[in-house]
């Protein structure tokens, strides 16, 4: 579970009144995938939710995202910078990051997206 999923569970548990041991008291320490995914936010917005000429990532199917990332890494898919960036990650990392964004809601619940 990535950070943002943890945050959603944490909020949801609060709404449902679940306490005690049902949900861990502290989030898992951030791992490398959390850090790589956070780095994507620099152009795609926090949680990959920013809508602009640069497409958002949040909530897109993991297979689709992974296929695009792999294509970028090969230089396909008509890239501008993404070929230069995708080459910086292993295929496993690209897969994990694709999975990460597929699980992020397109907009934070109860919160209007900017």
């Amino acid at each position, binding site marked *: 579970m990535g950070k943002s999923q943890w945050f959603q569970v944490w909020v949801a548990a609060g709404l449902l009144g679940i306490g005690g041991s049902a949900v861990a008291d502290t989030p898992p320490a951030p791992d490398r995938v959390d850090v790589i995914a956070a780095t994507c936010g620099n152009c795609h917005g926090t949680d990959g939710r920013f809508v602009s000429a640069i497409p958002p990532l949040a909530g897109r199917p993991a297979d689709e995202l992974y296929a695009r990332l792999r294509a970028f890494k090969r230089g396909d898919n008509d890239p501008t910078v993404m070929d230069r960036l*995708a080459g910086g990650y292993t295929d496993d990392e690209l897969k994990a990051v694709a999975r990460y964004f597929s699980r992020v809601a397109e907009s934070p619940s109860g919160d209007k997206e900017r």
Partner: protein
Amino acid sequence: MTRGRINRRQALKLMGAMGAGPFLAAGGRIPPAAAGGPAGRVVVVGGGFGGATVAKYIKRFDPAVEVTLVEPSRRHFTCPFSNLYLGGLYQFDALGHGYEELVSRYGVQVVHSMADDVDADGRTVRLAGGETLSWDRLVLSPGIDIRWGELEGYTRAAAEKAPHAWQAGPQTHLLKKQLEAMEDGGTFILVAPDNPFRCPPGPYERVAMVANYLKSHKPKSKILLLDAKDNFSKQGLFLDGWRKNYGDMIEWVGRSQDGEVVRVDADRLEVETEFGTTHKASVLNVVPPQRAGFIARRAGVTDASGWAPVEPRTFASPRVEGVYVIGDATEAAPMPKSGFCANAQGKVTAAAIVADLAGVDGPDPSWANTCYSTVAPGYGISVAGVYGIREGHIEEISGGVSPADADAAFRRREAEYAVAWYRAITQDTWGTA
């Protein structure tokens, strides 16, 4: 999760909404948090690209960590896109970003003050008003200071006549006003420094944007770029882009052609080069030598170079325990001094601090950079890189510049992506896109 946790979070939120007041209790010390205590207290100095990002991402990784951000300004005006403002392509107001979302959504305490000093043994920061803040971990992201006087004649007073505009704000307005007052047929001179300095492509984008303004308003004018280096970022792309968009308006003189300026006379708007040539400007823009912001020196994290060395994995200072440095103030080559890198470093360091406070190892770091430069409307170029650690050193894992032979459509897309990037990174850093 316990209900107490939510309550404390709500309490923190409320405190945030009330401003920093409750945080600076009697005696100026932060009171211990109620209900079990925080997972740790982090003070961040500087609310620019590095500081605002590290504050936000610590809270995202673990909301139980108390984070206080110290920044004198209510709105941070960014250097990125200030060149586009000079070129007439962006509004100055759109460069300003506030701290409301860090407070209301993430529970960061924001104190609008200047950090004056750091006591590393007592683990406190002293603010300009005399109060002190206690920390378990301290992050410094103060950006740059100008090395006044290092370039002969370039003092604070000189900068009022020959602006640097290398920190966005009054200096940017001054340069814009001077450009507007310049006669058609005048000479704009930009003096570029030796490495390392904030934003390696910045001077070259600056002259392009000045050319964009002059081309439509004062087309008989010339631009002379006097450089202390023989090579610069995206050099081939810039030289080609300048020529395609502005003909021979921009002349670049590298160090080996006597481009290095050794003396500035701001009253006469004259500069003298290494081999004694004097150039007279109508508008003189000096990008001077720089070093880490003064608070980094006060904290003892800088070395003889004026910049702060860092442990590659975490950006912890090897010189002062418990203190981390990110952004332009660091020596992090091959990562450039860019807003993008400062933001990326903020995230890695946030993860490292959260892990450290929890008593576990932080993740293997990964950073990225993309520096877009706008050469002309609809004409953008970029340099990008992904960085990681190999054999204990920061290295570029992948990256490069835009292709030299790209077509007009490619350059147009990169110009569009530059604007999209600016909006996204400012959303990601301050939440005020």
